[in-house]
């Protein structure tokens, strides 16, 4: 499935390394790195799902964090009633995020461009305020999830390593799904509609239906990321689905390079890494600069756009001529 190019080989090595991460981190005795990686990979699933609509479908959603929240609450709320069965959590996540994506998508997909951005924002804010007002489930304070979703022993999520492999597996699966999807008949319609929707219609495609389907698929994938996030943080609060989170997801995609398979993974890793270590770096330069780490981060964002086209992935793929599909 990997393009036989230099960057393709880089990514293949990367995936293998990620697969071995639990061994590596326990070998160097740094269990925290595994946590950091887990979080990065969960966000990578979410960012990849966003990339499916944003990068390949041209639908810029500023409301994708809502699905992260929905997925996490699909773990948290059953757990609140002492229902820990993982299949129920997973099924609920899929059903709820698909229905939400479908129902809102019916309206959202009537709009384009900036209007698309704003209407996705509107719906996610509605979800946000709904959960804030649900006092039963902690309201603004959120819900603590005492136990992880329970699966048969060979699939158990207990323990950092087991959970990591869940996340890793989900990521690989997500990437595989997106890869196959983009090159399938369905994916061609989505990619075509991004660039020239009118033309696609006159070729006989009911683009609205295809885009809606794509939107739902993306929502479900992100919902699953949310379910993993709930299990990982053992906690969920509405704060995790605010619009700034949706904005961060966009940055992760764009930072890594939109419409490339590994872009979101690279972007999220970079993002999580910076979030964790930029303050540390600032602290080492001068202890009182700890709180100013947003400054270099902002400068980095500005420079990335002004000087670096195509994100980090873009730099990598300058090594080879044929990068990814558009």
């Amino acid at each position, binding site marked *: 499935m990997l393009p036989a190019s230099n960057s393709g080989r880089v990514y293949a090595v990367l995936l293998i390394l990620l697969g071995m991460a639990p061994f590596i981190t326990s070998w160097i005795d*740094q*269990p*925290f*790195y595994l*946590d*950091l990686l887990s*979080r990065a990979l969960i966000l990578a699933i979410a960012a990849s799902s966003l990339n499916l609509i944003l990068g390949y479908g041209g639908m810029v959603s500023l409301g994708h964090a809502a699905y992260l929240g929905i997925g996490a609450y699909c773990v948290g709320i059953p757990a609140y009633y002492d229902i820990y069965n993982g299949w129920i959590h997973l099924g609920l996540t899929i059903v709820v995020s698909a229905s939400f994506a479908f129902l809102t998508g019916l309206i959202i997909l009537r709009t384009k461009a900036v209007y698309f951005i704003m209407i996705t924002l509107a719906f996610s804010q509605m979800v946000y305020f709904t959960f*804030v*007002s649900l*006092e039963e489930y*902690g*309201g*603004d*304070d*959120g819900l*603590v999830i005492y136990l992880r979703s329970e699966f048969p022993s060979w699939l158990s999520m207990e323990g950092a390593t087991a959970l990591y492999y869940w996340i890793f597996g989900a990521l690989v699966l997500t990437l595989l799904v997106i890869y196959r999807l983009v090159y399938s008949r369905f994916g061609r319609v989505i990619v075509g509609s991004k660039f020239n929707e009118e033309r696609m219609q006159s070729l006989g495609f009911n683009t609205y239906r295809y885009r809606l389907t794509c939107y739902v698929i993306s929502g479900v994938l992100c919902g699953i990321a949310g379910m993993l*996030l709930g299990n990982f*943080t*053992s*906690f969920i*609060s*509405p*704060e*995790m689905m*605010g619009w*700034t989170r949706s904005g961060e997801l966009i940055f992760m995609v764009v930072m890594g390079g939109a419409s490339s398979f590994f872009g979101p993974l690279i972007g999220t890793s970079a993002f999580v890494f910076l*979030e*964790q270590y930029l*303050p540390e770096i600032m*602290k080492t330069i001068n202890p009182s600069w*700890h*709180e100013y*780490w*947003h400054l270099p981060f902002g400068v980095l964002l500005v420079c990335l756009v002004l000087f670096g086209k195509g994100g980090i992935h873009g730099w990598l793929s300058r090594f080879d001529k044929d990068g990814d599909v558009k």
Partner: protein
Amino acid sequence: QADSVKIGFVTTLTTPAAVIGEDMKDAVNLAIEHIGGKMGNLDVDLIMEDDGFKPDIGKQKTDKLVKQDDVDFVAGYIWSHVLLASMKSVLDSGKFLVSANAGPSKIAGKLCHQNFFSTSWQNDQTPMAMGEHLSKQGVKSLYVMAPNYAAGKDMVAGVEKTFTGEIVGKDFTKWGADAQLDFSAELAKAKSSGAEGIFVFYPGKAGGAFIKQYQQSGLQDVLPLYTVFTVDAIALPKLQGGNLAGVMGSKNTQFWSPDLDVAANKKFVGDFLAKHDRYPSFYAAQAYDSIMLINSAVEATGGNLEDKDAVRAAMKAANYDSIRGKYTYGNNHMPIQNFYLREVVEDDAGRWTTKIVDTVYTNHQDPYAADCAL
């Protein structure tokens, strides 16, 4: 045995809430200075982390403190949701968690844990004290305002528990990243409700904003102001800067006040004032105490931090000079302490501050202790 004691301190250093985090940071540094950088014969190794006002970042930083830095104590936490997200990481690893502010009812009750200690208070207590005071004063009707989030609702629930008069109106205003700061509509309602007083809870910058608009609406003559966690050392200098004298004489309740006549407090407030030319806020006071509490446990165990039971017992004893004076811990490890009625006054140097005028509760325990299985 290690030759240092590692303490992780998680607070908010970015976003507008950084003003609280910085006050806490200054207090923590002062505490470490006061103990000469040593606890018993161990060096103190302090690691500050910024939670960015986000629960999952708070948890990530906590994970790092626990797993990578392998600290002995994790302290801090301003926000309930950050604490709730992070506590599992600390407690599951068998380390001690000292909350220097957040005290949601869950942690006081159902979720209480043997390794969790608080140097603050449980949310309900302070407004309960205010309700008690109002009832004693014979106030018959009250208008209530608070932000629409868990702590806001706790505060309102607290005052409702003890206030015997009628609550004639209640507003929960939007909170969060885009919190509402313009209260004109609510103040107009409060005024026309004919209440005898107004009770509010607006922490951080919302507090200053509220007071200004309270005065600008000319309410100080018709609707006396009663607050909790609103008029504090963070808000007062700015109110003074804006010359909003309407706040003078308004009443609030708290477990502590800068003028509390306790030796440890005199030293803390005096040195803090000297160093930073401003009064410490209650956040600072609690943060200072969190270090002192840890210090007392390290000293009591002779630096043997491996003996968790001994450390726990030492902490539970609260055998140190707290800025609030002597207090004890309940079964849920929340302080059993006094609550005072305070009034806003001007000090000798012309600074606006608060002065204790009455003791509402002595050795008060929070109502959730019964739910705690410990």
